[in-house]
């Protein structure tokens, strides 16, 4: 479980996160949603430790990240997997080598065991054997996301972060990636935090949704609660399109 308590973050006097508190549960797909510039990416990067917060607490199962030394943060990060918006695969390595990389850095496994584990992870995200030796630039965006998920779960993380996992993907592939993340979260009981403004994802897999508006946590609930919320900002954001307005009407 990750618990965020009264987190504030400013950049050159611009107060981006204002006293944000939230709990992200184990085995659930926790989603941070909000409009562009609302502060959701800053919140995620602060939780991971890529941004140093001004004050507040970020607890990973009781371990407060801002109090930790760099050495301890590195150890903690070995329990973290992350799926980046652009996949962030290493260009110089093949698909298989990308997934083996965290194992080579941190696991005591023998090289053959590492390869077996990497192959297992790649197969788990439904990638075919023939793509294993290809370079990341030789595979599609959807396949790159799958490789990135395989790399993120290679070390069996306790915490999984996904930054806009569906950006640049067609709706069908996006749905597959969403379901994959959800399956992995439940199967391995991971604390997953997804940063998204894709309403399809929210409706598909959002179990614990946190709505950030102008740096403030404006709402928290499940995907079912959204339909009954009277939060005006949330409604304006989620039901901006005609399609979702109709979906809301149908659900009411």
């Amino acid at each position, binding site marked *: 479980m990750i618990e965020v308590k009264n987190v504030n973050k400013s950049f050159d006097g611009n107060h981006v996160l204002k006293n944000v508190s939230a709990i992200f549960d184990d085995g659930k797909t926790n989603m941070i949603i909000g409009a562009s510039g609302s502060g959701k990416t800053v919140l995620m990067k602060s939780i991971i430790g890529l941004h140093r917060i001004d004050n507040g607490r970020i607890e990973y199962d009781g371990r407060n990240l801002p109090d930790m030394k760099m050495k301890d943060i590195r150890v*903690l*990060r*070995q329990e973290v997997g992350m799926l980046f*918006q652009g996949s*962030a*695969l290493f*260009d110089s390595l093949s698909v298989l080598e990308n997934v083996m990389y965290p194992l080579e*850095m941190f696991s005591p496994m023998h090289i053959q065991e590492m390869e077996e584990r990497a192959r297992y992870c790649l197969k788990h995200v439904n990638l075919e054997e023939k793509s294993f030796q290809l370079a990341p630039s030789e595979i599609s965006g959807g396949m790159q996301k799958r490789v990135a998920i395989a790399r993120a779960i290679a070390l069996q993380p306790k915490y999984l972060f996904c930054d806009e996992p569906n950006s640049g993907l067609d709706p069908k592939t996006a749905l597959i990636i969403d379901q994959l993340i959800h399956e992995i979260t439940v199967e391995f009981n991971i604390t997953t935090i997804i940063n998204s403004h894709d309403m399809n994802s929210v409706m598909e897999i959002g179990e614990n949704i946190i709505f950030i508006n102008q740096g403030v946590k404006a709402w928290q609930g499940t995907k079912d609660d959204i339909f009954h919320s009277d939060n005006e900002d949330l409604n304006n954001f989620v039901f901006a399109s005609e399609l979702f307005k109709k979906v809301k009407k149908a659900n009411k």
Partner: protein
Amino acid sequence: MNIFQDTGRYVLLMKRVFVSPDRWRMFFRQFPKELEKLGLQSLPIVIIISIFIGAIMTIQTKLNTENPLLPTYSTGLVTRDTLLLEFSSTILCLILAGKIGSNIASEIGTMRITEQIDALEIMGVNSANYLILPKVTAFIVMMPFLVIFSMAVGLFGGYLVGVFTDVITTADYLLGIQYAFIPYYVFYSLVKSLAFAFLISSVAAYYGYYANGGALDVGKASTNAVVNSSILILFFNLLITNLMLN
């Protein structure tokens, strides 16, 4: 960002770079690749530039010292000392600052803007150490070989002038390049080149590592890397020359 902030950030980055790697196995896997990329792949440009500069220097020295009072071997001697003292260390490093500096800055800069460095950090890897240490050490290891190679090829370029033109005889040239040879000049040149290799690779890595934004910013990082490492090469050339030859 002012020069003091840049210097401070550079020193802090180097502090992260020069620590024991998380996994030596990964370092030794990366190190030979960098030797090949930064060293061996620079050989063609070193050969081409050195051979032409050696030849041109011989012709110009001969044409500008047409004096019966000067001994005939003086052309070879001047060519040799110029190559040994300045060209094969300083000028060659200025040229390599362009090739290697832009290569390192753009490679690391692209990794930065495509979040690959963030991915390393999230995994708990010391990204500065993992990415920069093999490059800096490989370039430092390869530089003396490139310098020695440049000296030899440059002298050979001058020799070719004797073979293919009437500007100088090969006998005079060969006598000149052997006359009053001071081995310390080679040592001085190698010391300089080691310092320049560190400057080129580390300054370029610094600009690449702290690139932010998009492709345009990677281009800016590359330009800054080349310009600033060139200026530093000239400054340290003066400093080392004053220390070692004065």
